[in-house]
């Protein structure tokens, strides 16, 4: 009986560990995409701003995936014969959108909103990592509740000026702590209320 109980507890512990492991959270796993799109190439190499493609990120809950039209603003003229880009050309010709694999995906009982984070000075790099060094997209953070809460409890050290939100290489000034605190005030961040369940489960 004790053995049984022990094995139950043991398995639960292991199970709990599995649920929070990189395997289950899919952190750092590269996923299959219809086109091997490289952020490294387009962001670091060509200097494109995130908003050229993820245009809605400042105004809406989602950052979104660029429509085929956006790729074709360049690829109608350059690399027009590249076999890698065949699915893009086919998508434009047939009007069928490309089906990008969603790499960062929350359970549907969680409410998330990009625009508020952008407006209050949380950088893309804080949640998505150095996208500009990724030849293929992968998840940089576990996206667990604990991770959201760690920041919601004390956002100050993770804030930056709004103008630097899209900057992948911004570094805080020497007195980072004081600087974070001034940003909390400047952007009127209501720290005490950010951990209420209804903020993320509505």
């Amino acid at each position, binding site marked *: 009986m004790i053995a049984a109980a022990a094995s139950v507890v043991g398995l639960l512990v292991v199970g709990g560990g599995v649920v929070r492991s990189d395997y289950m959270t899919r952190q750092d796993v590269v996923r299959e995409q219809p086109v091997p799109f490289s952020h490294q190439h387009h962001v670091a190499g060509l200097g494109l701003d995130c908003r050229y493609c993820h245009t809605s990120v400042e105004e809406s809950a989602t950052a979104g995936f660029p429509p085929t039209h*956006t790729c074709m603003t360049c690829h109608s003229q350059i690399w027009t014969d590249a076999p890698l880009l065949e699915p893009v050309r086919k998508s434009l010709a047939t009007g069928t959108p490309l089906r990008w694999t969603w790499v960062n995906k929350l359970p549907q009982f969680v409410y998330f909103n990009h625009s508020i984070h952008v407006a209050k000075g949380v950088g893309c790099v804080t949640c998505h990592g150095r996208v500009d060094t990724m030849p293929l997209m992968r998840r940089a953070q576990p996206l667990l509740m604990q991770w959201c809460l760690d920041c919601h409890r004390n956002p100050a050290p993770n804030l930056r000026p709004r103008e630097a939100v899209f900057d992948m290489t911004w570094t805080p000034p020497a007195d980072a702590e004081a600087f974070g605190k001034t940003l909390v005030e400047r952007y009127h961040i209501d720290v005490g209320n950010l951990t209420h369940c209804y903020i993320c489960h509505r």
Partner: protein
Amino acid sequence: MTGRAAVLGALGALLLIAACDQRMIKQDKDIVWGESKLFEDGKVVQAPPPGTVARGELAYEATLGERPAMSAALLARGQERFDIFCSPCHSRLGDGEGMIVQRGMPHPPSFHSQRLREAPDEHFLQVIANGYGAMYSYASRVPPTDRWAIVAYIRALQLSQNVEVAALPADARERLEGAGR
């Protein structure tokens, strides 16, 4: 006996863990960027039927008819939007030497040509909305108010590359002449 209990216990625990993944992760609702079972083409965000006019759309389009007053805020917005959407090809200077052009995009004309300096604002608004030759439309990404902001900024760029020395403020003139021109 303890052996069998342990196995049973283990199986029970496995069931429990399996149940851990029966959360409300996937719900029977359509989410933006997800896949729809409701529509044949699988798109959640459907295009409106042809000919429909959305609420507020006319007022939105009407902002195109009226040039907003020039202000520092308008120029700052224009600079930001220009750098995001136009500079990859037209370059931050507007001379058409952008990064994508260096990688094989056809060379756009410089904004500092006599023709484009004299072109009316409407021409720029038209090009942003409808595209021009090899350039695609930016209508879906640059809303009407931002189009005006970009035009204002292009005007500032044009001025920056084409100004009489005598028209400069005194300190700027001194610096220029001090630089040994």
